[in-house]
């Protein structure tokens, strides 16, 4: 039950985050907005990491930092910036469902690079997502 409650809180926080980006974009361009959104997030999560996992820091290897750098590039530099630009251009209601299809891309990448198998469920999920995207984008195509 607690796990579900925390999951709902996570989803709500991300919902508010997208709305706040939409409001912020009325005053600041996406480039600087992305930077402004990363700064407090970085301070908050680094503080929590230091509180909850202080013993891990001295043991981190150079290779680990290369992976952190790659993760930071995809998630917080490219992902966050594209996210803000898409909200500015398409609006939060239409952009959010599109960039929430990330698990589909994660699965495709896992099939290509990690050798995960293609299952009927994966195909069913992909078809459902594509139908959803087609519905959302057809709004403008009409």
């Amino acid at each position, binding site marked *: 039950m607690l796990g579900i409650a925390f999951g709902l809180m996570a989803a709500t926080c991300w919902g508010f985050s997208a709305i706040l980006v939409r409001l912020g974009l009325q005053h600041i361009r996406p480039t600087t907005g992305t930077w402004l959104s990363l700064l407090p997030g970085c301070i*908050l999560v680094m503080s929590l990491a230091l509180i909850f996992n202080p013993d891990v820091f001295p043991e981190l290897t150079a290779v680990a930092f290369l992976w952190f750098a790659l993760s930071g590039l995809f998630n917080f530099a490219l992902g966050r910036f594209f996210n803000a630009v898409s909200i500015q251009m398409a609006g939060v209601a239409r952009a959010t469902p599109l960039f929430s299809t990330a698990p589909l891309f994660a699965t495709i990448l896992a099939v290509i690079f990690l050798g995960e198998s293609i299952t009927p*469920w994966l195909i069913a999920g992909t078809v459902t997502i594509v139908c959803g995207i087609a519905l959302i984008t057809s709004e403008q195509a009409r």
Partner: protein
Amino acid sequence: MKAIQSRLRGGGRIWLGYGFAMGAALSYGASQTVGKHVTTEYAPPLVGTAFALLFGLAYVSVMFHRHIPTDIRTSSRKGFLWFGLSGIASASGVTFLYFALSKAPVVVVSPVVAINPLITLTLAHLLLQRLERITKRTILGTLLVVLGVVIITLSRSTS
């Protein structure tokens, strides 16, 4: 970027927005694959995310170093507030996700978290009526996307 935006009006601009949204999905998808490797091999999720955020901040600082100082001097303080709060909300979301995963299995947490576009849609309807038009087609499309994401995440976490 501004030059491209100024040449695009209406439909073209929205389609470019869709392209960026799919670009964000691809980037987030790639980061999930990398993140899985990071958390299984090198560090707990919180530490991995903290350093990924630090590197992300560094990249963005370098990439947009010409805009940031000018905008900080000239932009409205409201923009600072909204984006700052957005960053805190987003980071809080990540933290809650880790707490959720520490209390319940992925198979339970993933579908709950996957509903976030529906929450965004509801909040947009309640708070952004002046800025956003939400149609039945958008709602139905979002429901289908959420359903598809739930199917994929559940099939991966149970396999």
